């Protein structure tokens, strides 16, 4: 997986700056959503993007360990659940003060991450993936079995977290901006961390952990620390999710949610600062469009992802860093094409799916032909 996140040639400073600027512009644009939502009289826009911003926080936290640390955790959604359940359970027992709920949720997420990390970080590769998956499923079944808190039906949160007179979370734009500020803070924190001494150790261990030990690093404790930090940030995303939906259920930590988070990071670009934000925006917008055609939308989404892996190694960010304007334009064009077909065929999904699959096949054949021609001209 690590080879996919890095191009063979060293990226130039200019192209890296491009992805940096696009990332900042995107974050700035996200800050305008409440205004746009009012301007277009479209409250759903705010709902959709609140979800996007919250998931982006979770994806950025996963990127810290997956992208920079090379730890393929297949259980990251567990912390969304732990954070959400902490808030939900406290609210259920009449504790609404945010200054109790939120720090406690983050703390407990960190403790759960420490336990999972201690058990899983001794292993590598596929075993690490399986163990993180298994342990997060354990957390999932705990939620399922918590009958006092609704079992698998989940639990409604009657009253949102209370920030005193400071913030009113019932006000949707206020809540959105709170999420947005937390996303900005998270991105900035990850930026500082991965470029710090700690970050160097983390990235070195991803690349070559045996060598890290020989030059004198007790690698394991650095990896565990990163694992816990990521869990805590993701726990905060869980707090926001529960507050946003006013509802907690085991579904929020189902293994497929962990898979979605990995896809968001890979789609956007592992080990890049803004990659997971790009990936989350792209993933959830696509989900929005595709899932309105059919509940089997992932059948369409799968091939799309394969295309991304084939055409834009390193995800959206990787394409930007290598200056593959064509790939990016094609990606955007594909999305708008999709959106166009979607609006044209309101209730019908078979035809647009066929069109999409045909388009993908066509592009694939074209790429194959071009590659063959290139290879031939090299001989």
């Amino acid at each position, binding site marked *: 997986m690590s080879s996919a996140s890095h191009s063979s040639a060293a990226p130039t400073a200019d192209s890296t700056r491009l992805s940096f600027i696009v990332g900042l512009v995107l974050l700035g644009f996200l800050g305008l959503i409440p205004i746009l939502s009012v301007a277009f009289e479209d409250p759903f826009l705010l709902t959709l993007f609140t979800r996007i911003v919250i998931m982006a926080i979770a994806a950025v936290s996963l990127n810290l360990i997956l992208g920079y640390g090379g730890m393929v955790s297949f259980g990251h959604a567990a912390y969304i659940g732990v954070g959400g359940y902490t808030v939900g359970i406290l609210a259920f027992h009449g504790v609404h003060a945010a200054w109790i709920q939120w720090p406690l949720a983050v703390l407990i997420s960190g403790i759960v991450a420490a336990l999972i990390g201690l058990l899983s970080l001794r292993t590598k590769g596929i075993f690490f993936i399986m163990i993180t998956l298994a342990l997060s499923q354990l957390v999932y079944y705990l939620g399922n079995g918590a009958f006092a808190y609704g079992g698998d039906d989940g639990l409604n949160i009657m009253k949102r977290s209370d920030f005193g007179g400071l913030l009113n979370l019932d006000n949707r734009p206020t809540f959105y901006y709170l999420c947005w500020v937390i996303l900005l803070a998270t991105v900035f924190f990850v930026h500082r961390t991965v470029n710090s*001494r700690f970050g160097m150790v983390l990235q*070195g261990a991803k690349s070559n952990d045996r*060598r890290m*030990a*020989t030059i*004198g*690093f007790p690698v394991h404790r650095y990896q565990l620390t990163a694992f816990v930090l990521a869990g805590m940030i993701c726990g905060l995303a869980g707090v926001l999710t529960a507050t946003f939906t006013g509802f907690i259920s085991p579904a929020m930590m189902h293994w497929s949610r962990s898979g979605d988070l990995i896809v968001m990071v890979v789609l956007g670009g592992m080990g890049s600062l803004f990659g997971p934000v790009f990936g989350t925006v792209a993933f959830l917008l696509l989900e929005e469009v595709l899932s309105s055609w059919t509940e089997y939308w992932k059948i369409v989404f799968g091939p799309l992802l394969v295309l991304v892996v084939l055409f834009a190694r390193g995800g959206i960010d990787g394409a930007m860093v290598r200056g593959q304007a064509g790939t990016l334009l094609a990606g955007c064009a594909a999305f708008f094409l999709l959106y166009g077909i979607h609006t044209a065929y309101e209730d019908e999904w078979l035809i647009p799916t066929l069109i999409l699959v045909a388009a993908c096949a066509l592009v694939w054949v074209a790429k194959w032909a071009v590659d063959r021609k290139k290879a031939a001209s090299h001989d």
Partner: protein
Amino acid sequence: MTEVLKVSNLVKRFGGLTATDNLSLDLRQGEIHAVIGPNGAGKTTMIGQLIGELRPDAGTIHFMGQDITAMPVHQRSASGIARSFQITSIFQNFTALDNVALAVQAHDGHSFRFWAAARKDKSLREPALQALEQVGLAHRADITASALSHGEHRQLEIAMALATKPKLLLLDEPMAGMGPEDSARMVRMLQGIKGSVTILLIEHDMDAVFALADRITVLVYGHAIATGLPDEIRRNAQVRQAYLGDEAAAE
């Protein structure tokens, strides 16, 4: 003379195979001590035990008078033992300078520092650049490691080891796979640092060994059959038969 390293009656078995067979060896302050021996003699296995990646089945290892037989890898490194790998083992996505700076960082306190930018840290970059200069790689400091040549990788390996200011440097076939030009440069480089650090050198290139070594130990089937000055080793009949003779016959 002070002994930097003292290996006593070291034994390492892999199943039925005794890869290190009652091996004793000592290294004196500042010397280059070469260990030669045919492939499979147990040279890399010996290094593995010195660095702490392999646990010996018997025997002791003393470093600067301290028993380090049970000490974990990262602590041995912290106390001043550095190694270069026989197979190049660097951080491919980092630049040459990043690689060396990471080695410096490993010996500059703990790394639970989350805020200040490590690439702007002079206390890491300057010693790293110095080490690159020592091995003649300073002009390639900003090149991504994966883009460096094989010879440059070997140089970078040694720069990383040197950057930790080790007391003992373990070099496992540093000239392996190098052309004559790169080999000659490596020999000059090692001559340059000779005396400032004690070096255990494993090398197949006999010209390099005889040009560099103060003493030579010959390893056969995990056992040291002879230790002595280069001239003594050259004259030793048992050695000629067991090892050097093979080489001469092959030429």
